[in-house]
C-alpha cells in the first residue's frame, strides 16, 4: 500500500506532534534527576503542559479539508481535536494540586495523559473502523491504567478491575460488530459502508447486527444506560484527575464516534434508529435524574450527573438534524468547563486525605467565597439554569428535538428529568450556603488552580450570555458531518 506522508501529516498533524511529545516526555523522565520523585515530575508536567498548549494553539492554524484513506480532517474533527486538547490541558490543571497525593508515578501521569489525548484526537478524525478501533484501544487501555493509578487504595484497584472487565466486554462486542459490518459490506471505510447502507431499502440482518453492536460499544464510552454500570464505582475509585478526564474526555469520545456512526455511516438510514436511541435516551435520563439524588460522595454524584448529561446528548442524537448535531457540539464544550471546575474544587476541598464526602463542601461560602462562587456557577450550568452556558446547551438540544413530532414525548420527559436534576444540584448549593462547615481547615488554592477556575467560570458565564462564536464553530463542525 502506498502512503503519502505529507498527506498523512496534513490529516494527523496533531496526532504526530502528540506522539512526539509523548516520546520526549518519556526521555525527559529518564534523563532528569534519576530516581527522585519530584524533579522529573515537575519537568515532565511543565513540558507536557507547554507542549499541549502549543499544540492546542497550533490547531487553530490548521485548515480543515484534508482527507485520506485512514482519516479525515474536516471541521468536525478539528473541533473535537481542539476540545480534547483543551480537556487534557484542564486535566493537567486538575492534577497539579493532586500530585503530592501520589506516592509514585507522578511523572508518568502526564505522559499517559498525552497518549490518551493522542488516541482521542485520532478518533475524532477516524473515517474507518480500523482507525476507530485502534484509537479506541489506545484511549481505553490507558484509561484503565489511569483509573487504577493508586494501587495502594483498594478502591482504586476495584475501580480499575471493574473498568477493565466491562470495558473489555464492550470492546469485544464492538469488534464483533465491526467484523459483521466488514463481512456484509466488504469495507472498513465509513463512506463506502454508508453507500451500501443507503443503497438498500432494508438493511440485511448481518449489517444491522454489526452496527448495533458498534452502537453498544460506544454506549459504554458515552455512559448510556445500561452501559453506564461502570461509572459510579470507577468515578469514585479513580484518582480525581482521572475521573475528571474520564467524565469529559471519555464521554466526548463516545459522542464523536456516535455522531460519526449516526450521521455519517448511517446517514439518512439513521431514522430507523430513532426508537433505539430515544429509548436509550429515556433510560439514561431516568437513571441520571434519579440516581444522583441519594448520593453522598461528590465524584459518584458527578458520575450520575454525567449520566444525565449523556441522556440529553442521546436526545440530540435521536433527533436526526443538523441543528441537533450543532447542539451536541455546543453542549460538550459547556460541559467541559463546568465539569472541570467542579472536579478541581473537589481536589482542593479534599486536599489532604482524599475524602470526597459531600460534607466537604458544607459551608464553603464562608470558607472560601471564591470556590463557592465557582462551584455554584458550575452546578447551575450543569443544572441548565440561565444565564449559564449549560442552559443554552439544553435549550438548543430541546429546540431541535421539538421539531421532530415523534420525539415530543421524549422532550417532555427530559424536561421532567431536568426538574429532578435541578433538585439535586440545588442540594449542593444548599450545602455550600446553608450548612456549617465540617472541616474548617485553611483551603490553599495555588495561583494556577485559581486561574483555571476563573477561566472555567468565565467561560461558563460568557458562553451563556454571548454564544455567537461557539454556536458558529459548532454549526461549522456539525455541517461538515452532513456533507
Amino acid at each position, binding site marked *: 500500500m502506498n*502512503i503519502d506522508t505529507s498527506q498523512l501529516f496534513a490529516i494527523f498533524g496533531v496526532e504526530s506532534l502528540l506522539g512526539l511529545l509523548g516520546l520526549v516526555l518519556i526521555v525527559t523522565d529518564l534523563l532528569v534527576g534519576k530516581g527522585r520523585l519530584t524533579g522529573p515530575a515537575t519537568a515532565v508536567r511543565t513540558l507536557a503542559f507547554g507542549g499541549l498548549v502549543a499544540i492546542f494553539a497550533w490547531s487553530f492554524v490548521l485548515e480543515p479539508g484534508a482527507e485520506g484513506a485512514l482519516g479525515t480532517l474536516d471541521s468536525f474533527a478539528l473541533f473535537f481535536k481542539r476540545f480534547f486538547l483543551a480537556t487534557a490541558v484542564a486535566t493537567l490543571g486538575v492534577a497539579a494540586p493532586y500530585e503530592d497525593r*501520589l506516592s509514585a*508515578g507522578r511523572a*508518568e501521569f502526564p*505522559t*499517559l495523559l498525552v*497518549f*490518551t489525548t493522542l488516541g482521542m484526537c485520532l478518533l475524532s478524525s477516524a473515517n474507518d473502523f*480500523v482507525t476507530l478501533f*485502534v*484509537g479506541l*484501544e*489506545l484511549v481505553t487501555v*490507558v484509561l*484503565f*491504567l489511569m483509573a487504577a493509578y493508586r494501587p*495502594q487504595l483498594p478502591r482504586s484497584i476495584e475501580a480499575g478491575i471493574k473498568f477493565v*472487565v*466491562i470495558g473489555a*466486554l464492550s470492546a469485544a*462486542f464492538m469488534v464483533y460488530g465491526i467484523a459483521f459490518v466488514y*463481512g456484509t459490506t*466488504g469495507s472498513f471505510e465509513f463512506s463506502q459502508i454508508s453507500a451500501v447502507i443507503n443503497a438498500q431499502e432494508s438493511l*440485511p*440482518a*448481518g*449489517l*444491522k*447486527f454489526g452496527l*448495533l*453492536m458498534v*452502537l*453498544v460499544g460506544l454506549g459504554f464510552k458515552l455512559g448510556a444506560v*445500561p*452501559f453506564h*454500570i*461502570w461509572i*459510579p464505582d470507577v468515578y469514585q475509585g479513580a484518582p480525581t484527575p482521572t475521573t475528571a478526564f474520564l467524565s469529559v474526555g471519555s464521554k466526548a469520545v463516545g459522542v464523536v464516534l456516535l455522531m460519526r456512526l449516526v450521521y455519517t455511516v448511517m446517514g439518512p438510514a439513521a431514522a430507523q434508529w430513532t426508537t*433505539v436511541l430515544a429509548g436509550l435516551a429515556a433510560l439514561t435520563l431516568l*437513571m441520571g435524574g*434519579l*440516581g444522583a*439524588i*441519594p448520593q453522598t460522595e461528590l465524584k459518584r454524584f458527578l458520575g450520575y450527573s454525567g449520566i444525565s448529561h449523556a441522556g440529553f446528548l442521546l436526545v440530540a442524537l435521536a433527533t436526526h438534524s443538523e441543528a441537533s448535531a*450543532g447542539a451536541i457540539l455546543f453542549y460538550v464544550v459547556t460541559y467541559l468547563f463546568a465539569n472541570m471546575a467542579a472536579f478541581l474544587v473537589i481536589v482542593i476541598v479534599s486536599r489532604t486525605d482524599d475524602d470526597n464526602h459531600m460534607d466537604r463542601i458544607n459551608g464553603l*461560602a464562608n470558607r472560601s467565597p471564591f470556590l463557592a462562587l465557582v462551584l455554584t456557577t458550575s452546578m447551575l450550568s450543569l443544572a441548565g*439554569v*440561565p*444565564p449559564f452556558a449549560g442552559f443554552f446547551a439544553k435549550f*438548543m438540544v430541546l*429546540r431541535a428535538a421539538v421539531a421532530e413530532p415523534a420525539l415530543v414525548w421524549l422532550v*417532555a420527559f427530559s*424536561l421532567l428529568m431536568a*426538574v429532578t436534576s435541578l*433538585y439535586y444540584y440545588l*442540594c449542593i*448549593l*444548599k450545602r455550600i450556603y446553608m450548612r456549617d462547615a465540617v472541616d474548617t481547615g485553611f483551603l490553599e488554592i495555588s495561583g494556577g488552580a485559581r486561574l483555571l477556575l476563573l477561566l472555567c467560570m468565565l467561560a461558563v458565564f460568557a458562553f451563556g450570555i454571548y454564544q*455567537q462564536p461557539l*454556536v458558529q464553530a459548532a454549526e461549522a463542525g456539525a455541517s461538515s458531518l452532513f456533507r
Partner: protein
Amino acid sequence: MFLALLLLFVAALFAIPACRRLGRGAVWVLPLPFVGVAVLLGTRLPDALHEEGIRQSVPWVRGLSLDFALRLDGLSWLFAMLVAVIGALVLVHASGYFRGDSRLLGRFAALTSLFATAMLGLVLADDLFVLFVFWELTSICSFLLIGLKHEHQDARDGALRALLVTGGGGIAMLIGFVLLSQAADTSSISVLLQRGDLIRSSSLYVPALLLILAGAFTKSAQVPFHYWLPGAMAAPAPVSAYLHSATLVNAGVYLLARLHPALGVRPEWHWILGHVGAVTMLVGAAMAFGQRDLKRMLADTTIAGLGTTVLLLGIGTATALRAALVFVAVHALYKAALFMVVGILDKRTGLRDVDRLRGLGRSLPLLFLTALVAAMSMAGLPPLVGAIAKELVYEAKLGAPEAPGVLAAVGFSANALMVACAVLVGLRPFIGRGEATRVEPAIAPVALLLPPALLATTGVLLGVVHEGLMAPLIEAAVRVMGAEPATAELLADTAPTAVSWLAKGTLFAGVVLFVFRSRALAWSGVLRRGARRGPARLHDGMMGAVAAVASRVADVSTRRPVAASVAIVGVAVVVITGRALVLGGLPPFPGDRVPAAHEFVLVALVLAGAASAVFSRTPAAAVIALGVIGVGTGLLFLLLGGPDLALTQVAVDALAVLLLLLVLRRTRPVLGVRKGWLQGGLALAVGAGFMLLTWAAIPDGHLRPVSQQLSELSWPVAYGRNVVNVILVDMRALDTLGEIVVLTAAAIGVVALLRGGRQEART
C-alpha cells in the same frame, strides 16, 4: 434601557469592594445606581406612554435567530419603576439594618443589585426567551439572598423549597414558551401580542397556557404553590421588603399582564385565573389572620394580594385591569414599608410575635406613625391610596361579566381579614400596656427608618393627587394590555353606592374580626392549618417518595459485583440487537453441509472447557480451562481452512494463559462469583441469545469472502504467505503502528502502577 441594565449590573460587581472601602459611607453610594435607573425611566416616561412605547434590540444568537430585545411601555414602566425606587430605599434601609457588618452588607448589596438587574430585565424583555433567562436568574438570586443569613434547619428547607418550586415552574414555563412561539411563529413578545387570534385558534393554546400559568403561579405564590412564600421568610427583613412585596412575587403577575392580549379572552383563561385567584385571595387572608409571627403574617397577606391581582386579571375587563395595576403599585408601597417596620421591631426587641409585642408606641413614636400610615393604606382607609385601590377592586368585581355577587362576597371576606391584619401589624404592637417589651436603648438610625417613612408618605401623596400622577400611566398600561378604558380618570366622581358601602362595610367587619380574634381563630384552626401546612406536607411527601424511588434506581448500578454488571450488559445487548433482528423471524438453519464427526468432537471440547472454567474450584484451574477453549477454537479454525489464523489464535491464547497464571501465583485471589440458578440461567440465556443472533445475522448471502481476496493478494502485494502477518505488517501497517503506540503507553502505565505498589510495600 440597556444602559439601565448595565448600570445595575456594574453596581452588582462593585458593591462588595465599595462596602469594604467606604464602610459606613456606603449608604450614600449603594442606592445611586438605582436612583440613576429611576431618573432614566423618568426621562423616558413620555416616550414610553406613547403608543407601543420604546423598543430596542440587538441580535443575540444569529444561528438561532434570537434577539436580545427590550421594550419599555406603560406596563413595563410601572413595574420597572417599582424595582428601581423600592430597590434604592431597601439599600438605604439595609445599610442601617446590617450596620457594623460591612461584609454582609456588601454581599447583600451585590446580590440585590444583581437581582434588580434580573428583575428589570424581566419586565423589560421583549422576547420570550430573554424573559425566561431573567426569570430564572431572579429565582437564583432570591435563593442566594435568603441564604445570606440562616438560623434553623427549617429556614434552609424553606429556601430550598422556594427555589425548587419556582425553578421547576420556570422549566414548565419554558416549554410553554416554546409551544407559544411555535403557535405564533415568533418569540418576540411585541409581534406575539399582535397575533392573539392566531394563538387562540391554535391547538397548542391550551398546553401552552397551562405550562405558562404553572410558571406564573409558582412565582406569584398562587394556591396550591403558595407554600414556598412563608418558608422564604427565613430571609433577612430587607430581603423580604424587596423580594416579597414588590418585585420577585410580582413577576408572575407581570407575565400574566404582559401576555394578556395574546393569551387572554379565551374562556380557559378566565376560568383558571378567576378560580385560582379567588381561592388564593381567601386562603392567603385566612392564613394571615391566624398568624402570630408578624413577618409571616405579612407574607400571607402578600399571598392574598397576589391572589387579588390574578383574580382581577382573570376578570379581564378594562376596569379590572386598571384595578389590578393600581393594586400592584399600592400593595408594593405599603407592603415594603411594613416589612421594614417589622424588621426594625424584630431588630429592636428580638420579637415578631403579635401576641407579645405591646406598647412600643411610646419608645418608638416615629416607627409607630410610619406603621400606622402604611397599615391604613393596607386597610384601605381614605385618604390613602389604598382606599382608591380598594374601591377600584370592588368596582371591578361588581362589574365582572360572570358571578359578580360571588366575587364581591369573596372579596369582602378576604378584605375584612386584611383589615384585621392591618390593625394587628400597624396598631397592636404599639398600643396597650401588657408586659413591657424590652427595647434596646440605641436610637434607630435614620437609614433604618427613613425608607419606610418615605414609602408611607408616598401612599398619602398618591392618595391625594392620584389623578394627576397615576391616571395617565395606568391608562397607557391598560391600553398596552389590549383594553380600552372607558374614562381617563381613575375614580369616577360619583362612585356607585354599592362600592362605597362595600368599602365601608369591610372596614367595620375587619375591626369586628380584630376584636373577636381569639374566638374566630378557635373556630377556624383546622382549616387554616390545613391551608398552611397541607401543600408543604404534600411537597415534602412527594420529595420523599422521589428520593425513595431514586435510591432504588441508584441501587441498580451501585456497588454491584463485576459479574452482575456483566450480566446486565449482556442481557441489554441481547435485548437491543434481538429486538431489531429476531422480530423479522429467524432464517432457516444453514443445512447444506452436515458437520463432520471430528468437528463435533472439537465443539464438545470447547464446551467442556467452558463448563470446567465455570465449575473449577481454583482460579488456576479456571484459567487452564479457558486455555482449553482457546485451543479448541484454534483447532476448529485449522480444520475450516485457516492455518495462519489458527496459529495466531493458539499463540495468543497460550500467552494469555501463561500471563494469567503468573499473575495468580503472586496475588492468590479468591473466586468471588456466586454460582446459583439465577446466575447460571442468565449466563445460558445470554449465550443462547448470542448464538441465535449470530445465526440470524450470518446467512443472508451478504457475506463476502474477504478472506479469499486477502489471501490472493498477500503474495503479489507483499510476498508473504502468512496472511495474518501480511495484514499486520503490510496491508494495515499504520494500524499496527497504532497498536504499538497502545502497547508503549500501556507499558508506561504498568511501570507507574508497579512503582506505586512497590512504594506501598516499602512504607
